[in-house]
């Protein structure tokens, strides 16, 4: 698919998956609106790339989101692709975490996705064209210790994206919900520094794999992308044998072997 002359909006474009997405879209000739909290942070996305433009907006602020989308649309035209990659992760046990922290993760990861999608959706539907790429996570399918707040926010993104894509059938829009395992980004480094037990220092896959799988899923018309070697397998084991999964997680956490029953297993 050619992106020459098309407009892409990437949130979280300062670093990690968002930064790479902005660069790849720019390489493809798209006009890229790179959005993040501060203009200074967006410098790496702008480097020697005349078709990347920086916009500062906080995705938790509905007014700011509406304003930035209006500005981008008036300066460059209707948005053809949204890559929603803005996200934070505050690892830790739910019993220790403050309500504000848990809510904040939800507000950025899920709320930010909802606000951005809603801000661009009407324009896309009007023009019968647009790609919505939501960066969710494997944590949106497989919950685990110390990743409760993050997992909840990504479960929400997965559900939102799934319902949205079904609502949008026949509009000409495409939706993909990308569910990677840990990815080698500044966020992963931050998680490992803040709580080394959260992901057990797992090495991340490369951000490029995440974007390759998103692109492939869009081309094939698939709703979910599961990049990484064992990602689908992990989703399957959570669905079919959740109690087994938690027993394993509990061993890592040095918790008791006896774990709550999940009731009738989801078929």
């Amino acid at each position, binding site marked *: 698919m050619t992106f020459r002359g098309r407009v892409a909006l990437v949130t979280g474009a300062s670093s990690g998956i968002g930064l790479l997405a902005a*660069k*790849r879209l720019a390489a493809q*000739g798209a006009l890229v609106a790179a959005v993040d909290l501060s203009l200074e942070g967006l410098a790496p996305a702008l480097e020697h790339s005349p078709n990347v433009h920086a916009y500062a907006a906080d995705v938790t602020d509905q007014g700011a989101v509406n304003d930035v989308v209006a500005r981008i649309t008036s300066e460059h035209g209707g948005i053809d692709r949204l890559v929603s990659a803005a996200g934070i992760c505050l690892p830790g046990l739910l019993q220790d975490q403050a309500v504000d922290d848990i809510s904040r993760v939800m507000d950025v990861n899920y709320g930010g996705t909802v606000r951005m999608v809603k801000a661009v959706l009407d324009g896309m539907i009007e023009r019968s064209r647009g790609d919505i790429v939501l960066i969710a996570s494997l944590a949106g399918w497989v919950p685990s210790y110390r990743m409760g707040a993050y997992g909840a926010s990504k479960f929400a993104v997965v559900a939102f994206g799934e319902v949205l894509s079904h609502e949008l059938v026949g509009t000409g829009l495409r939706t993909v919900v990308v569910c990677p395992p840990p990815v080698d980004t500044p966020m992963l480094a931050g998680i490992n520094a803040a709580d080394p037990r959260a992901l057990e220092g797992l090495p991340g896959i490369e951000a490029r794999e995440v974007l390759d799988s998103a692109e492939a899923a869009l081309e094939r018309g698939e709703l979910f992308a599961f990049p990484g070697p064992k990602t689908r397998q992990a989703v399957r084991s959570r669905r079919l044998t959740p109690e087994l999964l938690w027993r394993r997680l509990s061993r890592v956490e040095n918790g008791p072997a006896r774990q709550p029953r999940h009731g009738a297993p989801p078929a």
Partner: protein
Amino acid sequence: MATYEVLGSQVSTPVEIRDARSWFSTFAVPLESARDLISYSGLEPSPMMGKRALVSLGFVRYVDGDLGPYHEVVVAVIVSAPGNAAEKKKSGETGAFIHQLPVNQPFTCAAGRDIWGFPKFVTDIEIDEGVHRDTGTLKIDGELALRISIAHGVPTRLPDTSLAAYSCGDGVLRRTEWRLDGEGSRGRPGGVKIELGNNAFADELRVLGFPRRALMSGSMRRVRMTFGDAEIVDLKPASNPDPSESIVGAN
């Protein structure tokens, strides 16, 4: 090394490419036609099996590097090192003459032309990564010029390479040290489909006489490169008995 002013920002050599993805194919074409194609440079194609020359067609997606993100298509001819041939042969230096180098972004175009005299121009380049093949499509003025479709080969190991890249912008022959290494190489014999359009760019390649089958093709998932300074090459060593002055460093 040196610093250059390109479109209002500073670029220092050696220029680094930290992350790119590249695809290449190599064809053995008639020596005569390759010689005609690059005669303007004064360089000689490196002969292979007597009457053949190697022409390389490729495309690259640059993601993270000093020249920004862009796509590029490469048309190169493998050439014999100019100057004291015997001496160069001993050093085992391979040279690639860059005949065409379209890109899809203005910054890299300006940098490539100013710093190295590379024949860059801005046009439309698409790269599609498919399930079995990856395809690079070059369009000029909206019309297809060249489509290169490369099959996914089998994993291979390529050694780290250092080549001399030659260019001939504005009639000046330049030589640039080009280092390349990376991970995730794949390759196979053949495996290439070429489609040429109906314009000058395509016609020039058409008369080269591509064989049906490529010698080999492949890709590299993660490429790192560095480009040094260009040195101007003076191709009149016959009138100059001192070979050390046959290559004059510049810039």
